[in-house]
């Protein structure tokens, strides 16, 4: 037997297949993405829902601009000033909600959440620790946004800046409580990040971030009145317009006392659930 016969390729078998055409690689990549996106239908439905909600918001805005209710928008110094404060505040909620749900999800996937929970740390510390940074970061972004809005024409000539700060500080625990509940939901629900987006959007919608809540139907207005975000937003607008903001601070203090402990209890419950179901880690 010669060396060629020993080492060379067999004439009949094991001939390497030809290099596939470029299109087959594209098809393979597309097929992979389709396979990876097992919930593609869900994502599509979600985009449609968010699109519809955005249209609804603009419908309300259109109505406000056509028939501005006395008070609300004019008191804030025009629609731009009204919406600027609303969007800045909504930014806090949205950034924090997305930040905290993404953080929890990443920690589940990386395994760091399991490591942290194996340490001698109580659920209260964990909850505040997880929610703290996203909200501080979001608050900073909102301040920058307000400064930018002021440069573009946000009415601040009568602003009580001390009031703005006090309202923000008073609102912080209640906002953090919302973040903690979202973190708890992310532990329990597979698509907690999506739910976070919905909650942020819903809070902005119901709290009057884009249009006065007087535009909403009476039952929805009742829900709105029970939201700390609505109270905080009213307080911010009042402080920026140089109007009484103390009532909002008092109401926020009550919200803080109620919501923060409740949120920690919910978070502790979610941790127990995740330990039972083995959901501290996700693939």
């Amino acid at each position, binding site marked *: 037997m010669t060396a060629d016969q020993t080492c060379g390729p067999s004439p009949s078998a094991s001939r390497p297949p030809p290099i596939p055409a470029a299109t087959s690689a594209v098809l393979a990549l597309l097929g992979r993405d389709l396979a990876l996106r097992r919930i593609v239908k869900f994502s599509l439905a979600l985009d449609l829902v968010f699109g519809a909600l955005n249209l609804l918001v603009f419908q309300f805005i259109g109505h406000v601009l056509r028939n501005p209710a006395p008070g609300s928008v004019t008191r804030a110094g025009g629609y731009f000033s009204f919406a600027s404060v609303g969007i800045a505040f909504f930014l806090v909620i949205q950034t924090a909600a997305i930040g905290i749900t993404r953080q929890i999800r990443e920690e589940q996937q990386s*395994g760091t959440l399991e490591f942290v929970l*194996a340490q001698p740390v109580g659920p209260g510390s964990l909850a505040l620790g997880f929610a703290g940074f996203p909200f501080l970061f979001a608050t900073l972004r909102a301040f920058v946004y307000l400064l930018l809005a002021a440069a573009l024409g946000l009415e601040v000539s009568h602003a009580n800046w001390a009031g703005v700060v006090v309202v923000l500080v008073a609102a912080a625990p209640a906002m953090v409580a919302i973040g903690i509940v979202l973190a708890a939901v992310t532990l329990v629900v597979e698509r907690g990040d999506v739910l976070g987006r919905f909650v942020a959007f819903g809070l902005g919608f119901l709290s009057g971030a884009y249009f006065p809540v007087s535009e909403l139907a009476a039952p929805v207005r009742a829900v709105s009145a029970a939201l700390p975000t609505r109270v905080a937003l009213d307080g911010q607008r009042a402080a920026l317009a140089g109007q009484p903001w103390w009532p909002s601070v008092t109401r926020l203090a009550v919200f803080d006392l109620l919501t923060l402990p409740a949120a920690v209890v919910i978070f502790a419950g979610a941790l127990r659930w995740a330990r039972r179901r083995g959901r501290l880690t996700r693939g």
Partner: protein
Amino acid sequence: MPALVPSAGWAPSGTARNVVPAVEVCGLTRRFGSRTVLDRIDLTVGVRERAGIWGPNGSGKTTLLRCLAGTLTPSAGRASVLGHLSGSRAARHALGVCLAQERAFYGRLSGRDNLLFAARLRIGPVGAAGAVAAICEELALGSFAGMPVERYSSGMRARLALGRALLGHPEVILLDEPTRSLDDAASQLVWAALARRPDLTVVVASPRRADLTWCSRVVDLARLAAQGQAAQGQAAQGQAAQGQAAPGQAAPGQAAQHPAARHPAPR
């Protein structure tokens, strides 16, 4: 309930401290949906003992360690660490854990920052930096501790994971395949670090018998499950006695003694 007796390698001192076992598992069962991963496991590990948990892939070693660490709640039964229910704050304080070592780091942070984070959780801000410096020196982590962990090799991560588990002077340490991805020299570093801590109780899980030669006692998890089932009268006793155990194991009701237990721990 068949409790495993301490092996010859474990020498109880008779002090009150040793009355409470370091690790105690009673009738522990863990199911994931319809799949039972651990079925009525009983296990006792004495204080200062070095116990190995052996079993093939999928036998439930990591699940058992997670139940001990308190990050997974048993479906039935209970586990305790130094008399504290697993998952309680006292139990977590007593434990150092090294689970899923490839995954459980913040990749964009340096190894030192990861250790500092862990030290602050376990020790608090005062003394954390000193503890990290000491562990870096002991495990020779200094040359790469400043690098982001995402650039680490598997071996570097394994050493970092052990260092993190040793922070805060735990009384019991749980190690899941601690020498996977390590070369001989790095493995020696690991075993030497544990040998320098004679008061530390060590529970090591691994599918490779070579990893467990350092242990004073090796427990076959599959065998342990069979014992638990037999004791409950729900498994055929005959099967349990017919050579299903790995070599070197004792009969049901006795400690599963690995031949490697005869070897002294490397110093």
